[in-house]
Every structure is written in structure tokens, then in C-alpha cells.
């Protein structure tokens, strides 16, 4: 599904990703952990095609082809989804309106017919009930005045609707209370499928208790410095990143 080879990327002339190698096979869930500033969010942006990053070396093979040159909206339609660490607000645009616009834009880009309104509403209803997202929230402007936890749930709702092939979750657990963490994790788990890969960025082992990854990677100073099974997360939880400090700078 996803194969990142020797990826170097910089912003404003500053190199942040310094040779990332990472393979996420179809159907697997991988976690990325790593100290603050190690480049996890940057990797998620570069994977999803955000402007402003210079990929100076390396490849991103998604679904068989290199997507480094592909614009962000095309990657989205091709099935790359990013749940943002800090979801953005769009005043005056009802969440519902936004969801519909996004879903139909992707469908259009893939040459599929737009969803009819009743069909769309049905899908939203199913997904939102699972995630405890109220109808009232769907009528409110996107993320405006949403609590931290509501914003995160809204991200997973979008993921559920857009049905991506590759979902990158950037610290989706931060800001969630214990109940919300469970709801969101269940939501994510229900989206696990043999056709879908996930890259879960987190600082905390407790998320990985809920969403059990196939592999855990440690990122430090713009590189994947270690890869292991779920037990690696436990080790990190106990020892911290001190072992990898040498990799930085």
C-alpha cells in the first residue's frame, strides 16, 4: 500500500525529514512514536501533499505509483486521508455541508456519480451515531467552537465517510477523555479492513491498547530509527526516548 523510500523533505530550506524509510502493507496498522519535533506531523503533511515542502530526495509509492508530484486533492481522491493533529475551523460552513462537498468532490474526481442527498444523509447518520456525534453538531459550522475531543471525533467521522485506503491519524488521541478515547478507538477499529492501511501517530501507549498496531516505528530527527512489534510501545513508555537522543541534531 505505502512504501516510503529514503524520503528527504525540507521546509524554508530547513531539512526536517532526513531519509525516512517505511513500508505499510495493505491492511496493516502501524504506529509512529517519537519525541516532539522529530518530524511526525511533517511526514503526515508530506504524505498528503501539503504545499511548501520540498521533497529533495526519495519516493512515496502509494498504491503502486510515486505520488510525490501529485497535488493534495488528487491524493485525497486516490484514498489518502489525514486526521489532523489540529483540525481547522471554517466559520459559516455547516459541518454537514463540508462533508458533502468533500465526499462529492472525491467522487467526482474518481468519475463516480455524486451522492443524492438522502443517500448522503443516511451514510452520515450511520457514521455519526457510531462516533457519538450529534445531529446538532453536524449543523454547526465546521469545528467552530467544538471542544478538542469533538474535533477529533469529527475527524474520524470524516474518515469513516470518505473511506480512504490509507488513513494517517496524527495524535488523534490527544485531548480525548477516557470515554471519548474508547469511542474513537472503536470507530477506528471498525474501519480496520484488509483493504485499508493506517498510520497512527501517537505519544501514548494507552491508544495502542485500544488500537493494537501490527508494527510500531520510532521516529527521531527525521528518520525511522527503530521498528518493532506492539511491545516496543511498552518499552518506550517505560524508558522514554533517551536511547534515541543521540540520533538528533
Amino acid at each position, binding site marked *: 500500500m505505502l512504501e516510503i523510500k529514503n524520503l528527504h523533505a525540507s521546509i524554508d530550506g530547513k531539512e526536517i525529514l532526513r531519509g525516512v524509510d517505511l513500508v505499510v502493507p495493505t491492511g496493516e496498522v502501524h504506529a509512529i512514536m517519537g519525541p516532539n519535533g522529530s518530524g511526525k506531523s511533517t511526514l503526515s503533511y508530506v504524505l498528503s*501533499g501539503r504545499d511548501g515542502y520540498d521533497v529533495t530526495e526519495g519516493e512515496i509509492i502509494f498504491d503502486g505509483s510515486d505520488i510525490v508530484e501529485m497535488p*493534495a486533492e488528487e491524493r*485525497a481522491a486516490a484514498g489518502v*486521508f489525514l486526521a*489532523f493533529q489540529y483540525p*481547522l475551523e*471554517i*466559520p459559516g460552513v455547516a459541518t454537514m455541508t463540508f462533508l458533502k462537498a468533500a465526499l462529492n468532490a472525491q467522487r467526482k474526481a474518481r468519475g463516480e456519480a455524486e451522492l443524492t442527498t438522502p443517500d448522503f444523509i443516511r451514510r452520515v447518520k450511520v457514521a455519526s451515531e457510531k462516533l457519538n456525534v450529534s445531529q446538532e453538531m453536524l449543523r454547526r*459550522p465546521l469545528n467552530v467552537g467544538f471542544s478538542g475531543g469533538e474535533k477529533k471525533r469529527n475527524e474520524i467521522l470524516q474518515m469513516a465517510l470518505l473511506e480512504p485506503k490509507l488513513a494517517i491519524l496524527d495524535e488523534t488521541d490527544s485531548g480525548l477523555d477516557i470515554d471519548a478515547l474508547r469511542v474513537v478507538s472503536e470507530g477506528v477499529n471498525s474501519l480496520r479492513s484488509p483493504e485499508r492501511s493506517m498510520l497512527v501517530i501517537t505519544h501514548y501507549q494507552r491508544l495502542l491498547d485500544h488500537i493494537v498496531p501490527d508494527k510500531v516505528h520510532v521516529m527521531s530527527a527525521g528518520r525511522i530509527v527503530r521498528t518493532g512489534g506492539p511491545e516496543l510501545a511498552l518499552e518506550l513508555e517505560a524508558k522514554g526516548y533517551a536511547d534515541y537522543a543521540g540520533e538528533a541534531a
Partner: protein
Amino acid sequence: MPAIQETVDQVSQIDVDQYKYGFVTDIESDRAPKGLSEDIVRFISAKKNEPDWMLEWRLDAYRRWLTMTEPTWSRVHYPKIDFDDLYYYSAPKSSPGPKSLDEVDPELLAMYEKLGIPLREREILAGVEGASDRRVAVDAVFDSVSVVTTFKEELKKAGVIFCAISEAIREYPEIVKKYLGSVVPVTDNYYATLNSAVFSDGSFVYIPEGVRCPMELSTYFRINERNTGQFERTLIIAEKGAHVSYLEGCTAPMRDENQLHAAVVELVALEDAEIKYSTVQNWYPGDKDGKGGIYNFVTKRGDCRGDRSKISWTQVETGSAITWKYPSCILRGDDSQGEFYSIAVSNGYQQVDSGTKMIHLGKNTKSRIISKGIAAGRSDNTYRGLVSAHRKASGARNFTNCDSLLIGDKCGAHTVPYIESKNASAVFEHEATTSKIADDQLFYCLQRGLSSEEAVALIVNGFVKDVIQQLPMEFAVEAQKLISISLEGSVG
């Protein structure tokens, strides 16, 4: 005086006398030569078969205009206008005042299509009685002369007069005399005075006491000929307890020369009357380098003359190279209300200086201002608004909300509020925000699959929602589309 009278008499008898006017007129083009003089004013008046009092009114305005200078207080910059290099009268080629569409130049009908006039309205123009029960009467003003007037009969039944102002001057002189210039005095400002001297045509609406106008009234303007100054004049009177909603929408094709447009709109609302005036303005804004485009210097003012009367302005401004426009309300009657809802979009090199004046004179008068300015490209967008309370305006209230949205970093947004209160009990609230379409907001949308144009349109439509909701349905959809089109290419 006798000399003037003699001229007028002769002019009204014959069409054009080359000698008397000192210029040659090509009847076919039906256009007065360039430049402005008393003779041109007489020519225009004669062309319209106007009564003497109207000519005198125009000449008085012209003479006063000669003593005035162009205002310089606004935030717009443009090369000096050579008022002698403009045409002040131009009529369309088809014969004036056709009785049916068959008599209308097919070119003009084709124009409706190009202008994207909604199908239903085109159908109405084509004589097809719409399936919809909510009908729109269209008084189309092409260049200067009203060419088509529909639904006249039905309006007549309700006692509503909706016609070209030139017709009203001839048919309803008493009403026109009473109200013309009573809201915007002849000497109000440079452009209004110029308009008073040379106004070509425009609409006249009179709603009799207690009548609710049975349909929304709509006018489409279009600037037709090269170098033709457009001087529309609109007068709307709502008698006691009358209601009317008037829609004005306009657009123009590409052109490369600057054109002056100086319209005057006067609204009069008597006791318990209500006037809603909505505008979608989409004139040519100039090319990518800022060349060409319409100069739009408009004076729009409503007088809430009667107690409990209400005037509401809603405008969506996307066009013109320069917009200088402050639709205002004089809240004279006690408990009267004024509203101003505005969306002003500027892109490219457009300059917008727009806003409103709410003049509270009566007791317990209320006003509400919601202004949304969107600046993209290298444009400049200024909100300029005055809220004032007179000594006697006890209990006056105003709420102002003024938001600006910037797209890119080469444009500018400015808010210039003036607040004057001579009554201690007046309560004026003012809110203002300036925001930017941030890169991360855009990326968020792109990541969800929207193109950058769709993303901007979505964000902008969210930003202007409060105002769009004030527009009549048929305008709301058009306006949203127009806003998106106007911002095409503003990012990425």
C-alpha cells in the same frame, strides 16, 4: 429666459436641429456627441420629451455642477476623468418603447443569455408565463432607454406604477416633482449633481397606500456603447403601509476603456412602509493588469420619512474597477428602521470604498449594519460607515458588524467607522474582525478532496452567509455563484 424657452420649444417639436445644438447628430446611432454643455443637457431633455420644469431642474443641476469639484476623501485612486471626453446620451438601436418582444432587437435578447439571466426571467422576457407563482417583473434598461417592460398590466391592477423614469416624468409629473431630489438633493455631491443634470433613464416605482407589491421588481442594467457614461436615476416611493422588494442586478461584457457610472437611487418610505432594495453588481472590473473597468460612483439613499417605516439595503458588489458607494438611510420617522447588508468582493486591481450612513433623527430608531469585505489579488477594500444620532433621536440603536477576509498578502482591507452621537441615550455597538484564508485552512480542504477554487468558494460562502441569507432566493444562488467566479484564480 425667452431664448431658452424658444430652444426648448423647437427641440420638442423636431428631433434634432444641427444648427441650434452646434453639432451633428447621427440619428441612426442616436447618440449625442462627446462632452458636456448646456446644449447637451437640452438635447437629452428634448430626446425624452421632457416638460420644461424638468429641463430647468437639469440645467440648474448642471450649473451647480460646474462650480463643484470631485471629492478626494475616499481611498480610491484613478486617473483624472475627462468629463468632456464622455458621451452623455446614447439610445439602443431598436426603436424605443416596443409593445411586445417581437419588436425587441434579437441582439438584446441574445444578451440576456450571455449575461446569464436566470432561465425563468428569460422566459418571462420571452413571454412564457412561468410555472412559478412568484413572478419577477423585469424592466430592462439597456444603455439608457427602457426597452422592455413586462407585467405592467398586473402591477397596474394593484395600483403599482413601475416604469421608466422618463415615462414617469411625462405621465406622473406631480409625483416625480414632489419626490425627485427630495432624498438626494441636487447638490448632494459631485456625482449626484452630474447625474441630476444628465441622467439618461432608470426606474420609477410607486406603491400606493396599503399595497403590498404583488411581485419582486427587478431591473437589469447593461452598459452598451463605448465611452458612454451611464447615469441611471431611480426613484421608489412606498406610501403609507406599502411594501416593495426591488432587485437590481447588472453585468457587462469585457471592454478595455474605463467607463463612468454615476447612478442616483432615491427611496422614500412613508408611515409603516417597507422597502427592500437588493443589488447584485457585476460590472467589468478591468483586466489582469488593472486596465479598463467601470468606475462606479453611486449615490443611494433611503428616507424613512414616516413613523415605523423600514428600508433595507442588501448589496453584493463584485465588479467595477472602482466602487464608491454608500447606500444610506435617513431614519426620520420615529421607530423607523434601517438596514445595510453588504458583501463587497475585490480581486485583481479593484478598489472598493463602500459602506453606509445611518442617520438617526427620530426617536427609537434602529439600524443594523452587516458588512463583509473580501479582498484578493492586489485589490483594496475599504468599509466606510457613519452612524449618527441627532439630538432628538432618543433611544436610537445601532449594531454594526464589519468583517474582512483577506486572500493572499498583496491585498488590503480597511475599516473606517465614524460614530457621532448627540443624544446620550443612543446605544451604538460596533464589532469588526479581519481574518485571512490561512494556508492550513486551505490545505485542510484540499486534503478532503476539494480543489483550491472549491475550497476558497466554500470558505468565502461561509464568511458571507449572514448577508446571503438576506437576499431574495433567486438572487442568493446567483450571488453565491458570482462571488466564486469573481475569486477564481485568487489562490494557487
